[in-house]
């Protein structure tokens, strides 16, 4: 990190009434991912250095990256780069980092998404709208067994506004 002062970071901490293993499965297994991540699924063999791809319905690839950490059920990290939307794909890869820990009988999920390249990253703005939808969907699915209706953005359901 070139500067200690880092406003270019998205932080999200939520408490989920579940187990570490289930939350871990929710982040890494498609039978769960498809239910809360806007019908997307992840293609990845979850080995260090392996390629990570987020597939949208219809075989489109939205985002790509590489596995940086895979330490079940506590630490998952991958690089994340958009490869689909014109206004986002010009930006180089950022970093997604999940930490799971038990606190007061809940799973504390901490997401830090950082290493955005520019001081005015459009990708940071986009993911700041996307992660709350995705992760509140994960929490609801694990706590109630039912998925939330998923809305990619406040504007509409057009994938061009994904994360918007």
């Amino acid at each position: 990190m070139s500067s200690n002062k880092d406003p270019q970071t998205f932080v999200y901490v939520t408490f989920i009434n579940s187990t570490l293993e289930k939350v871990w499965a929710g982040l890494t297994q498609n039978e769960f991912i498809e239910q809360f991540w806007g019908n997307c699924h992840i293609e990845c063999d979850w080995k260090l250095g392996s390629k990570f791809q987020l597939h949208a319905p219809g075989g489109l690839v939205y985002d790509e990256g590489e596995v940086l950490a895979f330490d079940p059920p506590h630490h998952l990290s991958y690089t994340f780069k958009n490869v689909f939307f014109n206004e986002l794909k010009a930006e180089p890869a950022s970093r997604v980092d999940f930490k799971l820990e038990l606190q007061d009988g809940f799973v504390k999920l901490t997401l830090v998404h950082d290493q955005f390249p520019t001081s005015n990253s459009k990708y940071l703005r986009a993911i700041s709208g996307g992660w709350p939808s995705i992760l509140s969907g994960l929490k609801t699915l694990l706590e109630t067994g039912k998925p939330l209706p998923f809305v990619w953005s406040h504007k509409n359901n057009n994938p061009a506004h994904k994360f918007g």
Partner: protein
Amino acid sequence: MVAYIAAMDLVFKALADVSRRQLLDALHERNGQTLGELCENLEMSRQAVAKHLVLLEQANLVVTLWRGREKLHYLNPVPLGEIVDRWIGKYEKHRARALGELKRKLESNSE
């Protein structure tokens, strides 16, 4: 449910203070600030700001991360999002946002 109510109580208590809301505004303006930076723009002692930040952290409204030797404070969108999700429906949320944007535009034009 008991834990959920206790957590909501912490959020509303944390929000029920103008200084703590100013701190949230400061982080909304620029996320990832140190205690020292947050003190610069507020007329409060460092100790008072530190105490307010503890309450904001306990309510999960603020999260701290160590970056090198500095402890930086970040807004956590989760508790306010849960309040919105609980009392404002999915479709009303979009309308409320559109009306909020309209109000802001009209008010900025009249200046």
